[in-house]
């Protein structure tokens, strides 16, 4: 006897016995209950792009070295400091003293460019930019994958993995991707679109998509990026290409997804499966339901995505042909703009593990590896350790290449697209470029810059320095100084609020923001006098 689709589903969820004896499995719930309700779609969607570069950030090259009016030079540190105190305090130190960050307009650099990395070529977007200084990771983490997106409790495997005593959690891109404020309905492409020059990303997905705030190593898994622009294009845009799903009758395969889902639900009821096995199948069901929503949603979203890129095999970590690297990231950037304009995704991560150095007429590539067992000029991580004059120059030039070739191209593309309110897509976006670590593998003042205001949420065009320069310098390395700034967690909160999330969507504990905020693993030689009472708040003086 054959069940029709509807009754078969009811049978599986209500058959009692075997099925009801299973652990709670969210995908068995009717879809109407699974869907979050009440969120109204924003009239113009906000987009988020997270660009990440890796260890060996040339801190001095990131920040201004010449002090125009409105800035001063730090007496010890020697770096340029913004002079205008922020209206809102960062917090109070343990001694009760309030402390503040400082800011100054980036337009002061209109004639020169902001820094060696952010040259005058990026000036057309100065009004959309915020350059941050003093965003500190709280735990004492070293090499890590997910810190810049909020998984602050996990070193790389080679450094022992979990930071003892620190919370491990999924990253904010996944938290945002499940919010109805970001996606009122299923997108036709991936909820988080991962691109990069190596497969393993710096994002961690929750194993249970219906519990994005679960913590612990077993609750997350590392997301993977598309490393070939053509594959990425096919994955994100194939459903909305003319002649595909869009505008036509659903094809045979589309009409069968529902049936496939039932097969997985039936398999979950099979004998001799462990709870972990059933959870695996449950996750498969969740992804299939999501796929079905994507496919069905795509029918109304035709988009002229005719510029399908060529396949590019950029090789493993240390294949660093400059022309290939350049082509790879050019294609990725164009793909991001296309995916946004077709609205097939709203959250993108771009892992930049390869860059191009142009040094005195000599052009070569640098690659970064998770398994840096080799050495040489083309090894980004190796050079970060060499830190001789060549290494410093090359890393600075490489970062400049990322700014001028990758970031600038993206900003130009997003600025060219006009939304219905007359503002650019860049205005409605939040593009972040941040890093794995700061100077010499330290978790202080993670070099971070943004463009776009997330639809008018952020007050842009500013250099904001949250370092409390009244505090003593704890120690210096690679010409960087360890002094208290502000918790990176507050930047994470700011991002999520800017994207429209409410605290209930990202907080495990009311008022405590997101991610590990304890100075776990830092001894008294480190800067760790932060005001933790406001760790759940947005950054001071950041909003319009």
């Amino acid at each position, binding site marked *: 006897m054959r069940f029709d689709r509807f009754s078969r589903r009811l049978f599986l969820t209500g058959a009692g016995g075997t099925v009801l004896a299973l652990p709670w499995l969210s995908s068995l719930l009717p879809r109407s209950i699974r869907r979050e309700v009440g969120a109204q779609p924003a009239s113009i969607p906000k987009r988020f792009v997270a660009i990440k570069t890796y260890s060996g950030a040339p801190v001095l090259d990131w920040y201004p070295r010449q002090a125009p009016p409105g800035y001063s030079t730090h007496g010890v540190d020697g770096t340029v400091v913004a002079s205008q105190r922020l209206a809102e305090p960062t917090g109070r130190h343990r001694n009760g003293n309030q402390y503040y960050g400082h800011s100054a307009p980036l337009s002061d650099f209109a004639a020169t460019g902001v820094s060696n990395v952010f040259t005058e070529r990026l000036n057309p977007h100065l009004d959309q930019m915020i350059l941050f200084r003093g965003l500190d990771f709280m735990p004492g983490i070293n090499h890590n994958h997910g810190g810049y997106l909020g998984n602050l409790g996990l070193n790389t495997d080679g450094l022992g993995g979990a930071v003892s005593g620190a919370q491990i959690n999924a990253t904010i891109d996944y938290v945002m991707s499940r919010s109805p404020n970001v996606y009122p309905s299923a997108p036709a492409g991936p909820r988080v679109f991962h691109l990069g020059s190596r497969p393993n990303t710096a994002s961690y997905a929750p194993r249970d998509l219906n519990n994005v705030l679960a913590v612990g190593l077993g609750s997350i898994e590392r997301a993977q990026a598309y490393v070939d622009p053509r594959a990425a294009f096919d994955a994100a845009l194939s459903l909305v290409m003319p002649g595909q799903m869009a505008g036509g009758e659903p094809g045979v395969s589309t009409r069968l997804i529902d049936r*496939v889902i039932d097969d997985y639900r039936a398999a979950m009821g099979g004998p001799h499966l462990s709870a972990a096995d059933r959870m695996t199948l449950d*996750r498969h069901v969740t992804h299939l339901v999501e796929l079905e929503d994507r496919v069905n949603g795509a029918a109304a979203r035709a988009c002229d995505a005719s510029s399908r890129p060529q396949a590019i095999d950029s090789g493993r970590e240390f294949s660093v042909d400059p022309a290939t690297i350049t082509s790879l990231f050019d294609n990725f950037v164009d793909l991001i703009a296309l995916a946004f304009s077709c609205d097939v995704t709203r959250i993108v991560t771009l892992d930049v593990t390869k860059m191009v150095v142009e040094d005195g007429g000599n052009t070569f590539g640098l690659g970064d590896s998770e398994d840096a067992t080799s050495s040489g000029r083309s090894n980004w991580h190796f050079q970060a350790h060499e830190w001789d004059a060549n290494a410093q120059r090359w890393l600075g030039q490489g970062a400049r290449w990322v700014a001028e070739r990758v970031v600038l191209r993206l900003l130009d593309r997003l600025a060219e697209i006009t939304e219905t309110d007359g503002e650019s897509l860049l205005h409605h976006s939040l593009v972040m470029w941040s890093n794995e670590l700061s100077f010499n593998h330290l978790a202080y003042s993670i070099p971070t810059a943004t463009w776009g205001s997330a639809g008018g949420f952020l007050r842009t065009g500013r250099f904001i320095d949250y370092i409390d320069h009244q505090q003593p310098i704890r120690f210096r390395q690679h010409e960087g100084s360890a002094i208290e700034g502000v918790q990176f967690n507050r930047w994470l909160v700011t991002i999520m609020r800017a994207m429209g999330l409410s605290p209930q969507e990202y907080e495990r504990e009311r008022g405590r923001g997101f991610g590990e905020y304890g100075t776990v693993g830092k001894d008294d030689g480190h800067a760790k006098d932060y005001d933790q009472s406001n760790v759940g708040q947005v950054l001071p003086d950041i909003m319009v």
Partner: protein
Amino acid sequence: MKLGLHSVRAWSAFSSLGVAWLVCGCTGSIGNVGDQDGLGSARDPVVCKETPGPVLAPLHRLSRTEYERGLRQLVGDSLVDGAADQLRTLPSDEAEGEGDFSRMDHRLSSEHVGAHYRVADRIATQLSQDADATVAAFGDCARANPDEACLRSALPGFLRRAFHRDPTDDEIQNVIDEASSFSAGERIHAAVFLTLMAPDFLYRFENRGEEVSPEVVELTGFELASRLAAHFWSGPPDDALLDAAASGALDSEEGFREQVDRMVAHPRTEATVIGFFDEWFHLHRPPFGTSPRLEVLRDGTDMTGLSEAMRSEVHELLRFHLDQGDGFREALTSRYSFAQDPRLATIYGVEPWDGTSSPPMLPEGERSGILTRAGMLYTEDGSTNPFRRGAFLRRSILCDAVAPPPADLPPDALQRPPTEAGASSRDQFAAKIVEEPCASCHAQFTSLGYIMEAYDGLGRYRTEERLVTVEGNDEGTAAVDASAVAAIEGRDEPAVSGPVALSQAIADSPKANACFASRYVRFTYRREIVGEDQCVADRIARELEGGQSMREALRSVALDESFRLRRLEP
């Protein structure tokens, strides 16, 4: 006759035994990693029975390789090649941590499911529009009228090839029912799509067998066939294996061994085994690059393709000793050269090997065994790093736990020492770790790296180190001191002089065979081996110590009774 299971039931009494893997940290009593020497085992002792029990085996998503091979076996190369774009959207399987293998990647993301959909849709479209492919998959009737009768006659065979077992009547009926709701021209598409998206195509289920205890299931013949094929071939079972499962031959000891022997002799098994060593030994490293230092060190040698030739030589060494029926110990001390590239042969000081005749012997005293091969030693810019070499030997070849560096390293701790006139790399690196907290942590592995300083970053043997800075400045030479206390078993050992003696000492240590065994069991079961699962590795290590060949050891994993059982996580 079914295999005896009394030992399995007895084993379950031990299921409550646990193992706490040591979490190492270079804090406090730095250096006390694993045991009092800081060099010892990475686990607490486990009480093992003579016959190890079954190993935990979670539901297994097909790896990318297995998935593609399964597709090719089911629908043929041309249709799979026609879905190359769609297949490219499937995430690759990646090894994440030290000691992991890419086949241990069990991640499941929307990218996986989306790619499965695209591939299934593409192949279903192609097959249903290709009359020859349709007939090949579903028989002549499918060309004219794939009605219910046609599907009923074709689906048992098609689903058997897809699921690697005989489908149930319900499974056949469900596909017929679903396909019949489509027009005649769409039914084949529907049947193919449903098959390629089915749980039994994308996962390897091992849950249909007889329960021998609340947590242990005996694999059915078909499940055993799939496990064998996944293990030895990283692919689906072939017809002979499925036939053996269907006939019950695989249930008998004789029939099972016959299939294992056939598979072990198959070329695909050799490829899988070489892939195992490739990942274990980190042979996939970046090739020689372009740098001022290498420009000086290479002495005019054309480096194009040389790193690949070095890697191939390691593969040939492994093949040779596998074919010879040698143990891992022989591979660790082999003095044969398999260098076919004249440049590599020159580095070794031998004539190139012709690939068929008896391989030449390496000069005495310079090299011995796989650890001394250029493919294991070269670096991208020709420099050496005794810390990394030592940590690799300690961690990957001896399977000792090595504590990671602390997060709060002193300033510039990880900065490589500069190359300076008059000071060898060993001297320069040693000077960095005189003080705590570096000294006691580095005592775990650094001496092994010092001994390997007898080779430069091109894999050349040396008694004098040529000092070349990163800028390519030649700073003269320094004598190489390749003597140190290797501390393989403990720190009270006498000093070892040179890498030949080190290789022999490692080969003589039971740690080498134990490490080989534990890595291979991890490779087999695709997960970290913990608790009593380690008993399987211990048994293999014992037999290797007793003179068993590598090939026999690899075979014995499958012959172990535990291979035919599955233990469920509670």
